[in-house]
C-alpha cells in the first residue's frame, strides 16, 4: 500500500491554491520556454515584413519628430535641453512602460487557445514579454547615444546614469503590475483591452513626456506627482541630459507604488489562472 503522506506525491491538484504563492522552481524549469517565447516574439513578428526589426527604431524617431514640430508650434519648453533629446529620452522610457502594460494585459485573451490545450506556468508569458520589451528598450537606448554625442556641449550627463537599471526595473514592475491586473480582469470583461489601449495613449499626456515637470506649477504639479511614472521618467532624463525634476520622496513613492502594484498584479493573475479557461 502506498503512503498517503503528501511528501510522496509530486503534485496535488486542488480546487484552489493560495494566490499569494509563486512556484519559482516551476518557473525555473520552464526557463527555456521563456527564452523561446522571446525568440518567437522577435523573429516571428518580423518574418515577411519589409522593415523588420527596424520598426523598433522608427517609432521613437517619428514620434520625436511629431513632438518636435508640435512642441515648437505650441512653444512648449524643454527645460533648456535640446528638444530632440528631450522628447527622445522621454519616449524611450515611456515606451518601455507602456509596452509592458499593453502586451501583458493581453496575456489570457491573446493566448487562450494555447492555454486551453497545454499546461505550462502562465507567468512565463508576461515574463517573456518583459524580457523582449527589454531588448526593444535596449535598441531604442542605442539610438539615443548618437544624439547624446552630437549634443554633448549642451547636456550634463551624470552619475545618475548608474541609477538607470533601477529605473528600468521599476518601470517593468509598474507595467507588469498593471498589465497583470488588467489581464486577469479581461478574462471576464473583454473590452478592457480596448480601454487599456487608448487609456495608455491618453496617459502620455498625464506624464511629463512632451513637457517638463518644471513647467507645471502649483496644483498641476501636485496632480502630476500622483502619477508614479513621473519621477521615473524625470530621473531617466536627468541622468542622461542633466535636467529633470524629482526628489527623494517622489522616487520613493514610485518605488513603493511599483512594488505594491506588482504584488497586486501577481495575486490577481494567480487567482485567475486556475479557472480563467471557464470564463474567457
Amino acid at each position, binding site marked *: 500500500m*502506498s503512503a498517503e503522506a*503528501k511528501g*510522496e*506525491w*509530486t*503534485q*496535488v*491538484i*486542488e*480546487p*484552489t*491554491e*493560495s*494566490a*499569494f504563492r509563486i512556484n519559482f522552481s516551476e518557473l525555473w*524549469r*520552464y526557463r*527555456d*520556454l521563456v*527564452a*523561446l517565447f522571446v*525568440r*518567437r516574439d522577435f*523573429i*516571428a513578428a518580423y*518574418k*515577411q515584413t519589409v522593415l523588420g526589426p527596424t520598426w523598433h527604431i522608427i517609432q521613437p524617431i517619428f514620434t520625436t519628430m511629431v513632438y518636435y514640430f508640435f512642441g515648437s508650434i505650441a512653444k512648449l519648453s524643454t527645460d533648456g535641453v535640446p528638444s530632440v533629446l528631450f522628447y527622445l529620452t522621454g519616449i524611450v522610457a515611456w515606451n518601455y512602460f507602456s509596452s509592458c502594460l499593453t502586451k501583458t494585459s493581453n496575456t489570457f485573451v491573446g493566448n487562450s487557445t*494555447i*492555454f*486551453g*490545450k*497545454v*499546461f*505550462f506556468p502562465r507567468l512565463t508569458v508576461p515574463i517573456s514579454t518583459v524580457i523582449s520589451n527589454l531588448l526593444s528598450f535596449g535598441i531604442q537606448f542605442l539610438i539615443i547615444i548618437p544624439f547624446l554625442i552630437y549634443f554633448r556641449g549642451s547636456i550634463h550627463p551624470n552619475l545618475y546614469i548608474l541609477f538607470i537599471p533601477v529605473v528600468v526595473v521599476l518601470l517593468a514592475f509598474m507595467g507588469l503590475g498593471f498589465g497583470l491586473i488588467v489581464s486577469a480582469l479581461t478574462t*471576464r470583461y473583454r473590452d478592457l483591452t480596448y480601454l487599456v489601449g487608448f487609456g495608455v495613449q491618453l496617459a502620455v499626456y498625464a506624464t511629463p513626456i512632451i513637457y517638463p515637470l518644471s513647467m507645471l506649477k502649483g496644483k498641476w504639479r501636485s496632480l502630476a506627482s500622483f502619477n508614479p511614472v513621473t519621477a521615473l521618467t524625470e530621473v531617466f532624463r536627468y541622468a542622461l541630459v542633466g535636467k529633470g525634476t524629482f526628489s527623494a520622496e517622489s522616487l520613493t513613492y514610485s518605488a513603493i507604488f511599483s512594488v505594491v502594484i506588482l504584488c497586486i498584479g501577481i*495575486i490577481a493573475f494567480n*487567482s485567475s489562472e*486556475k*479557472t480563467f*479557461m*471557464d*470564463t474567457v
Partner: protein
Amino acid sequence: MDNVIKVEEVSKIYKLGQIGSGTLGQDVQLYIDRLRGKEHVAASENDEDIHIALQDVSFDVKDGQAMGIIGKNGAGKSTLLKILSRITAPTSGRIKIKGRIASLLEVGTGFHPDLSGKENIYLNGAILGMSKAEVKSKFDEIVEFSGVSKFIETPVKRYSSGMYVRLAFAVAAHLEPEILIVDEVLAVGDADFQKKCLGKMKDVSNNQGRTVLFVSHNMEAVKNLCSQVVLLEKGKLVEIGNPTTVINTYFRRNTNYFSHVNYDAANAPGNEKIALRSADIEIANGEVLEITTGFVINFEFDLKCDFEEFNYSLNVFSVTGQHIFNSQSHSFKASKGKLRAGCIIPPDLMNNGDYTISILAVSKESICIYNFESVLRFEIFDNRKSDKWFGEIGGAVRPKLDWKIG
C-alpha cells in the same frame, strides 16, 4: 504496485449563462474566498443554472498501467483530462499525482505558422515541458519520425495538414513523461498516421513502462491498448474494470439506437389501399446490433383491398442519405386484411453505422402502391476482432465473402 494517480471525489460544476454569481457583493466575497485559498462553493445550486460536468469521480491508476476512459459525448471525459492537465481546476475534490504529466489534447499546440519546422520543434517541445537540451538530443529522431526532413527549414504555414500533424505528433511522441495523457489524437490524420500513433503509445506503455491515460471512442483501440477501463456517464463514474467487461457495459447502457413504431388505425401512415400499423427489429441473438448479428425487420400492415401481384421493396439508407441497398420480395397474392412481413438481414453483410429504412408496397412489380419512408432507424456497432487496424472501414456494406487464394 504504486499508485501514480489518485483521483479523489473530483467534481466540476460549470455555471451556465452569465458569468459571475450575479451580484457584485457576492462576486467580491467569492473573490476574497478564492484569494485565501478556500474551496469554491457554487453560489447557486439551481438545476437550470449549473451543469455538472463531473460528480464525485474517484479512481486510481497504477504505475505503468494503460487506463482507458470511455463514455458518450458529454460524459465528462475531456473535462477530466483538462483537470488532470491543470488547464482548469476542479470545483471540489483533489487529484494526487506522482511524476511528470504530459498531455496530448491536441497536436501542434503552440506551433507558430511563421516559424520553420525546426524552430517549432523547439518551441513545441518547450511548451510541452522538454528542456532545450532534451529537444536537441532527440531532434534527429523527431525529424525522422515525422517524415518531413526535406521541409524542416520551411515555415510550417506552408505544410500540408498531414505534414503538420505528423510533425506535431512526432514532438509529442518523444516526450518522456512518467504519465502520458492522450485525448483522441487519433481522430486526426490518415490511416498511416493513426497506426503510427497507436504503435508509439503501445511502445510507451508496454516497453517503456510509462503510465498512459487514453480517452477515445475507438473501442478497438481501447481494448488493444488498455489494461483497465473507466466508464463515465453524465459526469459519474459508472464502472471500472477490464476492457471487455466495461466496453460491454457501455454498449448495453447505450444500446444501439433502434426504433419501434406502432400506429393506431387513425394515425397509421399510408393511403386508402394500405396502412402501416407497426414495425420493429428483432435481433437474432444477444441484445446488441453488431456487424456479426443477423436481424429481422418486421412489419405489420392493414391492406384495404386485394392485389393479384403484390411485393415489397425495402430500401436501406445511411442517415446521411446514401442509398445502401434495395431488396425486393417475391410477388404473391395479397388479400384484404392484416398483412405481416419480415425481412431477414444476414450477419456479416452490413457495415457499422446509422441507418434508416423505407419500405414500398408494390403491385405488379412496377406500380407503387405506397412508399413508407423512414419507417425505422437503427445503429449497428462494429465488433471486429482485429488488433492491427483501428481506423474506419468504409463502404456501404461489409459482406463476408469467400476468397480464392493461390
